[in-house]
């Protein structure tokens, strides 16, 4: 682990960067699965160009928070503003929260890209079609342009010659890089990563993290749920610690690693580093 960090993630970020206006605002969000409350009054503001890493033990609510931001989960209270949209809901005349229809939410989601732990590439389509499906069929992009864009993205994630391969012919690391390219093809304003390296063999983790670090350096706004503290060190502007459905600590990576305040953070770091 430490060996890999020195290899692939040598450069720590040089001080705080210039960040743009808020692009994702999570306000007092409550989320319950049945009787279990998984998010308790969670608030979080992410600014344009910022890279936020969310850490925490499994069951702490970090993946749920990410899924709520893309409205893959409903929320019971609070609101999430992303890219200027109130995700999944609107206020009716009396100020009550009303769930938006399928088409409205679909439109909202197109501004954000999401990468999953289990890649979720479409197994019946080759790599090129995986990437161009949404731009062509949903955004109505010109197929030729979409393909050119897809080839450019494949080059960017280091897979310029796998356009014709099917997901089943790729390794996990390659599949995840295609999944990143697929999300980028929609030209998202924000990228959400849900434990993108947790399902990978150790030797493939770095190839995915490299792509993500590269993305962060190009100014992409990213919210990353991960256990890879090497990535946090190399690319994050902020690290959040979640426990029991709450954000218990929030700090720049250097501070978080050298001087964690919260008990959960200390325990987490002692186990992971």
């Amino acid at each position, binding site marked *: 682990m430490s060996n890999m960090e020195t290899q692939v993630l040598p450069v720590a970020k040089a001080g705080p960067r210039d960040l743009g206006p808020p692009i994702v605002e999570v306000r007092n969000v409550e989320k319950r699965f049945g009787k279990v409350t998984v998010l308790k009054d969670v608030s979080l503001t992410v600014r344009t160009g910022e890279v936020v890493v969310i850490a925490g033990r499994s069951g702490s609510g970090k993946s749920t928070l990410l899924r709520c931001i893309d409205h*893959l989960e409903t929320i019971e209270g609070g609101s999430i503003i992303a890219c200027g949209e109130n995700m999944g809901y609107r206020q009716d005349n009396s100020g009550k929260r009303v769930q938006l229809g399928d088409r409205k939410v679909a439109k909202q989601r197109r501004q954000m890209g999401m990468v999953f732990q289990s890649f979720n590439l479409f197994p019946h389509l080759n790599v090129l079609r995986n990437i161009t499906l949404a731009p062509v069929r949903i955004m109505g992009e010109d197929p030729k342009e979409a393909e050119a864009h897809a080839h450019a993205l494949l080059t960017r994630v280091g897979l310029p010659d796998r356009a014709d391969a099917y997901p089943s012919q790729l390794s996990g690391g390659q599949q995840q890089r295609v999944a990143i390219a697929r999300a980028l093809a*929609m030209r998202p304003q924000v990228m959400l990563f849900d434990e993108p390296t947790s399902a990978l063999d150790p030797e493939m983790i770095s190839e995915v993290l490299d792509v993500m670090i590269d993305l962060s350096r190009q100014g992409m706004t990213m919210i990353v749920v991960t256990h890879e503290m090497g990535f946090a060190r190399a690319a994050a502007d902020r690290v959040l610690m979640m426990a029991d459905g709450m954000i218990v600590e929030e700090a720049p990576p250097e501070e978080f690693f050298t001087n964690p305040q919260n008990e959960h953070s200390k325990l987490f770091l002692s186990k992971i580093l």
Partner: protein
Amino acid sequence: MSWSWDHFMQFLFSPYMLNGVWTTIWLSIVAMVIGCSLGVMLAFMKMSKTWALRQIANTYIWVWRGTPLLVQMVIIYTVLPKVGIKLGVVESAIIALSLHEAAYFAEIVRSGITSVNKGQEDASLALGMTWPQRMRYVIIPQATRVIIPPLGNQFNLMIKTTSLASVISMEELFRRTQQLAQLEFKVLEAYMCAACWYLLMTTVWGLIQQRLEAHYDRPFGPVADTDPKKKPDPVLTGQAAQV
């Protein structure tokens, strides 16, 4: 009772019998097509978020799977006219067979769709697809692989089940066999003929089904086919769809 090859061969290729065979074939196909279409509709109703739609589908499936086709057929043919809905033999047979099939096919479609990995739904949602887009581009192409084998079995059953339409005097293979048997009291010969024809039909379908299943059973993508000189399939690479 002695076996007569003469009668057997005479029955086997008599135009009267062949006509019945043909009726059985088209009746099976028509009932299957209508039944499957209704079945797909029922499956989506059953998976709907709307309570009423779900209940309608559930009740339909409950009733049609819980009663014998024979009873359904007789009710449609003899009872409905008493409430003013008069249907001919052919219409009654088609309606009974396809409504019955729909109840079974609905379950097949539903299990096919639910068999698609939940992550596929997540990925297509995250890409901003609406429900019809998710179904069309992601879910149904994958569900088809699961649906094809039981669909084949249903058609095999359908070919044989059409014989029940004889009770409402539909002139298909079984009824014609009955009549031939009574004509010259060559019962065994006549029914052996019918058995042969049914067996031939289900066997031919079995061969078609095998090919279909082989096609849908192979993994996605050209696994064995790695010849780089071969032109990629335009359908698979999506170039065909864009022309």
